[in-house]
């Protein structure tokens, strides 16, 4: 009998939780649907911009942060269960292209993108920035004149044991970037391979992604790294600067609206804001992003003179192939 009682308690807990949840749900549904804009994004540190937007327009942008690794999986799962709440999605271009193939995206013509280069407008997907990659060095340990002038300089033995980079065997962006160098910078594949060999001989320390690269640079654990110039802004006043090498390469950042968004008007309004000079300026200034809005640059000395070009995103097969290739080149053990 008492077992029943025990199980009853358990059941009760489940039921009550369900009810509490239900209450919570009706609450969220009742909340003015016209005001809330749901943004799924993988770009980080944008809270101040969203806050500014909320304040100046009276909207409420709900920012769901999705890392690249979980992006497609999460959205497709929600779509399948008809629970996608996103109005606006922001992520790397190839990912948004997959979402468009799956019929998730709307094709909205943004007025604010009129000044953008043609390659930045792809049938409803807008490129608004480039996740630019460069050689970042510690200014306490490296004088500007000692910094590399060309990418080849990183293969100089003087950097041996002083380099940090994301693992070229596994980090997709680093793989794409290295392949991007081959396709955009080096004159021949042999020259590029010599560079890789030299870089490998310098025994760089590998981390999982770009995220952990600035810490060893700021602390002086490493002198130089393949990292992102925006950290110079976000990690100020850390003693960081970037080697001024042209061109700099990076993956394009894209944004788009979803089809059947719960709040289409709000979504459009937000996209117009996001692509406009105001938001782009804040993105550049506060987050150090390289934006495509004409004439807007991050507050990093010399960046306006540097050419920053989007690299080709590699297919999965290419990533696997090059990852394995780099794995061989970089494994000295």
């Amino acid at each position, binding site marked *: 009998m008492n077992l029943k009682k025990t199980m009853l308690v358990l059941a009760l807990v489940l039921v009550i*939780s369900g009810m509490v949840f239900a209450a919570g*749900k009706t609450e969220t549904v009742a909340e003015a649907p016209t005001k809330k804009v*749901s943004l799924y994004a993988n770009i980080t540190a944008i809270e101040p911009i969203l806050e500014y937007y909320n304040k100046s327009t009276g909207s409420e942008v709900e920012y769901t942060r999705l890392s690249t690794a979980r*992006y497609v999986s999460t959205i497709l799962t929600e779509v399948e269960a008809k629970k996608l709440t996103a109005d606006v999605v922001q992520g790397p271009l190839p990912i948004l292209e997959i979402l468009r193939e799956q019929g998730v995206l709307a094709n909205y013509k943004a007025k604010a993108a009129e000044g953008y280069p043609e390659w930045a407008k792809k049938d409803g997907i807008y490129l608004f920035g480039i996740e630019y990659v460069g050689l970042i060095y510690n200014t306490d340990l490296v004088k500007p004149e000692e910094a590399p002038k060309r990418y080849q300089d990183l293969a100089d033995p003087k950097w041996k044991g002083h380099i940090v980079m994301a693992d070229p065997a596994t980090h997709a962006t680093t793989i794409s970037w290295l392949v991007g160098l081959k396709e955009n910078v080096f004159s021949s594949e042999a020259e590029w391979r010599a560079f890789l060999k030299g870089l490998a001989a310098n025994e760089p320390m590998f981390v999982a992604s770009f995220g952990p690269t600035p810490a060893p640079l700021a*602390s002086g654990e490493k002198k130089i790294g393949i990292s992102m110039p925006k950290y110079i802004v976000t990690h100020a006043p850390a003693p960081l600067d970037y080697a001024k090498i042209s061109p700099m390469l990076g993956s394009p950042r894209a944004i788009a609206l979803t089809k059947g968004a719960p709040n289409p008007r709000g979504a459009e309004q937000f996209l117009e804001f996001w692509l406009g000079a105001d938001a782009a300026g804040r993105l550049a200034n506060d987050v150090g992003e390289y934006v495509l809005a004409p004439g807007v640059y991050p507050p990093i000395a010399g960046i306006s003179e540097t050419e920053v070009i989007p690299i080709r995103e590699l297919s999965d097969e290419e990533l696997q192939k090059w990852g394995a290739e780099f794995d061989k080149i970089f494994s000295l053990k």
Partner: protein
Amino acid sequence: MERRNRNLTYSLIVVVSLLTVAPVLMLIIGSFSNNLNSFGNFTVKKYVTVYTDPMLASILGNTALFVLGSAAFATVLALFLAYLNNRTDIPFKFLFKVLSVMPMMIPHVLFGVSWALLLNPSNGILNMWLQKLFMLPKAPFNIYTLPGMIVVEGLLDLPVAYLIISPAMGAFDASLEESSRVFKSGPIKTLFRITLPILRPAIMAAFILCVVRGLASFSVPSVLGMPGRIYVLSTFIYRVVTMSLIADYGKAAAIGMSILVISVGLIYVYRYFTRSSDKFVTVSSRGFKPTVVELRKAKIPLFIVLLIISFVLIVLPVLVLLYTSLIPYVMVPGRQAFSAMSLQNWRVVIKDPISLRSLNNSLFLGLAGATLGAFLSILVAYVIVKVKSKASGFLESISFLSFSFPGIVIGIGFMWYFVRTPLYATIWALFFGYVATYLPYGIRPMTSAFVQIHSSLEESSLVCGASFATTMRRIVIPLLVPGIVSSWVLLASMFFRELSISVVLSRPGTEVLAVQILRFSEDGQWGRLSALGLIMIAISTIMVATVNAIGSRFKPGEVREKRTKVAAQRLVAIG
């Protein structure tokens, strides 16, 4: 009795299945589907791809070394500490309480990062000091190695092992050891021939739990293993997931399956070795005399060892966090760093609405989740220990199911599962996801406690006319209080810093601390991360200390009774 136990067993199997089998089932389907989501046409392509990876052999080797090494390290250290605390006259015993729970509250990523800061071969603080002190040509330690990973993971798993071993050690019938001494065994030999074999169930439970934890551990392998390019299964999964822009979690699940098989296998091994728990009942109604080993000359050196462990495990990471929270970016300590110190990071964190909301949510999940988890654990542990049937063995195995999966994978399993329920995108998704995944944390200490209670104690209650529930409430649970406190503390501190599941299921409004910390880490905001981390550690310390205090004051009458009982036993011992 029999029928009641059978009913209880089957009801629990249903409840636990809903919690743990369902998400794993989704993952199994996903691993065989040719779609990115869980459902799709059947294919074994994902298995073929991941299991033909040329790196797999070396990864398996590393994984075995890492997992066995860290589990062995944690278990041996836990045994050592449990012995010192329960059986010797070492001073400052409260240190053990702190030692045993403190590392539970430090987010593992932070712990790993602290150690990288201290022992990296380029400018690790400790390394540089040692180098200067002994005039070495190069840094003496490199944390980015397999031994480094083993030690750090071992330290992190130490509390789990300790909380399982210590109660068993405390309840040990000392005359079993004393007789060994009389029969010509020294203290060391007695330890290995008598004490450890009799404690085998607890030791194996601790070791296996650590192995399972090590298999699923991601923080240490990613923070310390990746820089040295030492891959283990969990980082291999990460690699499979991130090597493609469109992450295919079916592949990750396919790798996870082998971890699952290993874990479930281990649990059967454990059951095999401890199949007659009667063998190991060491506490009976006779009561136990706590005899204390006098350390004599070894007292001071052992105490110093204890201090060093406490320092390494608690003081150092907290100091590193405190330091990091005060500086604007990662700097080597020095004049420059000290002049740059400010409370800026603290100000930002305290004013950050998301941080505050995540604190709120985590507190709720920690308190409420641990309470439900501990309650469920009592029932499950009871069935596992006292109802020895095929069904109870099955229940034990399924209680480990979600736990055995690497965190990144099981989170997706829960997402695929919950998205089909109204729980999706609510705090209850986190709530039930936590309870399901970390159920073994609740069950393990509880089973150790149950094993120690001789069935005659309950049987006599039943004979006295008490019902099953009354027996539980009046006899079993009061005797179980230490186990319940252990379970609750393990669960609460785990939930308070849970990341793997939260990172998948947390949504705006249901942010939790670890996810907020992860955000800071993705932005490279180590200062804010450290400040929030310290707040988190402080709150869980208060939480755990309160529960420990309540646990020890549970039923004041009983405590008084216990005290007089101890005094009486003393007298008996003298007489």
